[in-house]
């Protein structure tokens, strides 16, 4: 439905040209949600703005609904844009218009009659749950409500494609969750294709079918979301995945953490369960095979599209030899582990 073929974008500055996007190829199948994740400055914004030519790529083609946008003359480009809805981080609603008129904007632009507009808007207001806010102005709405208005506005022209430019980045986690559910719901009801950009892994986890990692203007890897979390390929992807699991250890442990081990310290380890590792009974092996004692400090396993992925933090206790053997064994299993540090014996209790 959306295809980027060999898209490059360079910004010309007095100090030379800066590549913002480098040879991007991606395609989003009809009715799917594709999320692009990357740090700030990775080129995400440029990429999504290329999808409706708010930003013209230096080279390459953008094909939306079998139409190559890059070759269209201005009038036809405007027509094509009416079939591409877009929502923004800061909502971009007209403060001078009420909710109804804001949603009606794309329709008044295409000169739809006011009776036809009413027929379109009423169900949309219901869909986004703002029927009672019809006459309110944006200043009277919360962030989540504003984004709902913006979503309704984006849907008013019955688009085939929806672009979301960090739509939940200005919202609190709870509101983010409801907006993402709404997007999924919209995809299911209208079968629209959604391309979104975000810097939050939680957005990808919650609502995307496919994910692409953008790093320094390059699309490093793309995959089905479940596969991506289970088997990240590149280092950048692994970082994103592991960072999304890591929860902070409590202060009573972190304040005693030291880098070196000694006779009276316990190692603290973090396991990342991704792919096959998640299915192996590692803990029981550590106990039975290496006679270690284990204290579970923290854990979190999630199921993303039928893949168990997550993290577990444990403290280990045993004789030095067994410990070393256990670590060697874990390394040989190709399980992603790290030793966070070592804490003195008195910090963590191991029942004898």
């Amino acid at each position, binding site marked *: 439905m959306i295809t980027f073929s060999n898209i490059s974008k360079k910004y010309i500055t007095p100090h030379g040209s800066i590549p913002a996007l480098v040879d991007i190829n991606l395609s989003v199948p009809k009715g799917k949600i594709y999320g692009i994740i990357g740090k700030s400055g990775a080129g995400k914004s440029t990429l999504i703005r290329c999808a409706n030519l708010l930003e013209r790529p230096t080279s390459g083609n953008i094909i939306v609904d079998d139409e190559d946008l890059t070759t269209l003359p201005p009038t036809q480009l405007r027509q094509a*844009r*009416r079939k591409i809805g*877009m929502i*923004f981080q800061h909502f*971009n609603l*007209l403060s*001078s218009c009420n909710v109804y008129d804001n949603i009606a904007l794309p329709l008044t632009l295409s000169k739809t009659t006011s009776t036809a507009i009413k027929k379109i808007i009423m169900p949309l207001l219901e869909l986004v749950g703002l029927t009672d806010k019809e006459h309110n102005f944006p*200043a009277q709405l919360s962030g989540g409500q504003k984004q709902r208005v913006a979503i309704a506005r984006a849907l008013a022209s019955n688009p085939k494609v929806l672009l979301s430019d960090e739509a939940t980045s200005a919202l609190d986690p709870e509101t983010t969750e409801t907006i993402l559910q709404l997007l999924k719901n919209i995809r299911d009801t209208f079968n629209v294709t959604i391309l979104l950009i975000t810097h939050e892994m939680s957005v990808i986890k919650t609502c995307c079918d496919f994910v692409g990692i953008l790093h320094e203007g390059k699309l490093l890897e793309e995959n089905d979301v479940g596969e991506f979390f289970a088997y990240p390929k590149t280092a950048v992807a692994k970082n994103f995945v592991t960072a999304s699991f890591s929860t902070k250890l409590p202060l009573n442990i972190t304040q005693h953490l030291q880098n070196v081990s000694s006779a009276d310290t316990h190692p603290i380890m973090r396991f990342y369960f991704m792919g096959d590792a998640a299915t192996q009974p590692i803990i029981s092996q550590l106990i039975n095979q290496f006679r270690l004692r284990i204290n579970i400090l923290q854990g979190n396993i999630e199921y993303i599209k039928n893949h168990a992925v997550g993290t577990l933090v444990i403290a280990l206790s045993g004789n030095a030899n067994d410990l070393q053997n256990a670590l060697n064994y874990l390394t040989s299993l190709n399980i992603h582990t790290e030793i966070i540090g070592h804490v003195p014996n008195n910090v963590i209790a191991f029942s004898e």
Partner: protein
Amino acid sequence: MSQTTLLLLVSSSLQTIYMVAAASVLATMFGLPLGIALYITRRGNILEKPRLYNFLATLVNITRSIPFVILMIAIIPFTRLLVGTSIGTNAAIVPLSLCAIPFIARVTENALSEVNKGLIEAATAMGATTLQIIYKVLIPESLASIINGLTLTVISLVGYSAMAGAVGGGGLGDVAIRYGYQRFDSVIMLITIVIMIVLVQFFQFLGDWVVKRISHR
């Protein structure tokens, strides 16, 4: 106060109101589009035309830098061409409008630059034409600001219209100079000042009221 003085004050007040109103309407008719042109042609905006922008901006600056009293006299041939005379209320409207046009243009340009660029982007993404962006986004969003600027202009025009009075333009300024100053009639002087104050207060109140009605921030 004699009946004649009262009549004089009433008719000169009406003349002032007429001059200010006519000049405001004319100046807005030309100043508003000029302001919009300045905004859209500026570098980085929707109809970027640096050369045209520089030309318009220079024109505006030149007109703004000429003091009103001098402008009024300097354009006498032009005024004659338009209204057939260089004396009287109608003649005063020409320089009054001319000096308010660049002011309104700049005020409009400033008001438009306050509009969030994200809104223009959103409208572009919806397939809006440049004209639609101006009418459906830029003007509605900056209207309160523009009205504030227009109020400012109208009030300045009340002051300028008094200056026009000094050189035969009629209105309250004319009365204040001829009766108040040249005949040492301090009562008349005082009354004209009070009427001016009332006029200014009225225009300010009117402007604020309109802004309050249309503002939804």
